[in-house]
């Protein structure tokens, strides 16, 4: 069976860690065997931690010449049989888009952590969440992606493990859309004694790029196993032969790549609900901003206002059903974001109620008081 229970690498217990340390340790716990990266604030600390820790656990660390090389080398390492990861921030995330597309098209498991900062371009190396749409639409071709939005140090640890498990199970890159705010946050991390990890399916002699199910994930061999693999990101048939002028091959491939994400939204798209049972108004928030949103909700509740929070743990595939259901029973949804409005468009499309953006893009985090005020104005 692909699922295995393994002992945590860090001894069980409580740690006082930064998000950067937690995501690195989560990757180690998940069995990550290869990391490649390039220094960039605010995620350099992840790479520095990994540079110290990987040799201790028999994993390979590479500092590459740029972010393009980093993501590309992860694809090579993944095909050579190691779980692979890279970590970057906005400008590096832009450089990595083409390599991510190669990983998606060749069905290569890997994890990419984006510690978002305030863009555009070099912008500010402070906090922001400006890459959440890029996580869905950054690659040419517009294929669905899987992207999560951790809000705590704990979730950077647990979420790294989950990201590897999803990447391996679905054979696709998984994006962890972290933020400078959580990367540099230091708080308590609980490390359990054991974790569940997914090891990739092997089936020697089976086609590595096709299967009967329209949403299926083929088994994944590695280089050096005698399979004579033909891996290409050009349109290919189930054995990897390029068929770049055959409409049927393209249809079969892209439909399966689409379906293997979009037919599993219920498993992939997670939300958390706070104070929503009797809510007349709601906040939909993600990442660090959801912490402020929860504080705002609790403050408003003490004043008797019936407001709740839906936290998006998954940005992509978007938790359409949950947001649609929420929109059917509240009169208003506020969407606070550390950008000039991105996920608010998706919430607005899903929810049949008033949807109000609250945007802040100045390199600082959104305070609970700002959300309280924004909700006051919206009423």
């Amino acid at each position, binding site marked *: 069976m692909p699922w295995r229970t393994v002992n945590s690498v860090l001894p069980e217990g409580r740690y006082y860690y930064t998000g950067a340390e937690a995501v690195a340790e989560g990757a180690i716990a998940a069995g990550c065997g290869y990391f490649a990266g390039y220094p960039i604030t605010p995620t350099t600390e992840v790479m520095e931690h990994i540079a110290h820790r990987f040799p201790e656990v028999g994993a390979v660390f590479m500092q590459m010449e740029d972010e393009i090389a980093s993501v*590309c080398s992860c694809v090579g390492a993944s095909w050579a049989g190691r779980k692979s990861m890279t970590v970057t921030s906005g400008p590096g995330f832009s450089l990595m888009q083409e390599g991510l597309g190669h990983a998606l098209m060749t069905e290569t498991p890997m994890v990419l952590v984006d510690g978002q900062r305030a863009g555009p371009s070099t912008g500010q190396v402070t906090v922001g969440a400006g890459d959440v749409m890029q996580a869905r639409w950054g690659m040419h071709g517009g294929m669905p992606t899987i992207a999560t939005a951790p809000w705590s140090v704990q979730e950077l640890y647990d979420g790294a493990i989950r990201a590897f498990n999803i990447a391996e199970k679905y054979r696709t890159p998984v994006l962890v859309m972290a933020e400078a705010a959580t990367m540099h946050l230091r708080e308590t991390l609980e490390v359990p004694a054991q974790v569940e990890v997914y090891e990739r399916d092997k089936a020697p002699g089976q086609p590595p790029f096709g299967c009967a199910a329209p949403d299926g994930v083929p088994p994944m061999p590695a280089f050096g196993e005698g399979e004579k693999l033909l891996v290409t990101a050009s349109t290919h048939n189930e054995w990897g032969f390029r068929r770049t002028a055959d409409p049927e091959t393209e249809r079969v491939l892209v439909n399966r790549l689409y379906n293997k994400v979009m037919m599993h939204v219920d498993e992939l798209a997670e939300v958390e609900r706070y104070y929503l049972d009797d809510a007349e108004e709601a906040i939909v928030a993600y990442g660090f901003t959801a912490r402020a949103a929860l504080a705002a909700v609790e403050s408003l509740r003490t004043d008797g206002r019936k407001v709740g929070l839906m936290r998006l743990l998954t940005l992509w595939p978007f938790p359409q059903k949950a947001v649609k259901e929420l929109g059917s029973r509240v009169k208003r949804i506020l969407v606070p974001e550390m950008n000039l409005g991105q996920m608010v468009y998706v919430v607005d499309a899903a929810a049949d109620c008033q949807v109000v953006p609250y945007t802040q893009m100045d390199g600082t985090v959104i305070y609970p008081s700002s959300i309280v005020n924004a909700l006051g104005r919206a009423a």
Partner: protein
Amino acid sequence: MSSEWREYLRPNVTLPFCPGCGHRLLLRHILTALVELEVDMDKTLFVSGIGCGGWIPSPCINTDTLHCLHGRAIPFAVGAKMANPELTTLVVSGDGDIADIGGNHLIHAARRNHDMTVICANNMNYGMTGGQVCSTTPVGAITHTTPSGNERNPFDLIALVNGAGAKYAARYLVTEGPSLVAAIKRAVQTTGFSFVEAISPCPTQFGRQNKKDSIKDAYTYVESMVTSSDTIGMGRSVDADGLLVTGEYVHA
């Protein structure tokens, strides 16, 4: 021996090259070298980029092959080799792929001394896109983007990789079969970063644009830009007349 190299071709693959393409010869030389070295093809990885040169291993060679993004074959190969050092790892791709868009990866792979062989199929232009100038096009040559002749100096790839720290470098014409096969063998046997530049005439694009109307004329034209050297060592890789000097450039 001549029949053996064909056994390393992937079954049921039609070779994708134009008539007279030097890459077909290079494919044969690469496979001949591997046959002679008795390399374990189950533990051999070919990595290639985008362009005509990328099609030399993918899909033609019957080993694990990874066909990559344009310019990025080397970092993909670095990841695979670092993840599994048992893989005999070769990058085969074109000059545009390796020296233009991928030039940064080339010099850094040489500097870091990854244990791999990079074979650059240098046809002196972007062949697959119809024949545009690239960083190895000789001064004066006509391409679709240099209709009055190329005014920019080409890279001397041997000097480039030697400066970056390659442990072995060689340059031969694809028509210098025995020398090129020997060079590929030495490159694969080198521990550390090795580089082979195979000068590979492109009659269809580069030859035709330069008014070389036959395959033979296209080969003569490219051969006129090259001079041979029997010197093994740190000789000049471009001579006083600007000719590319073939030979081996061996480091410690």
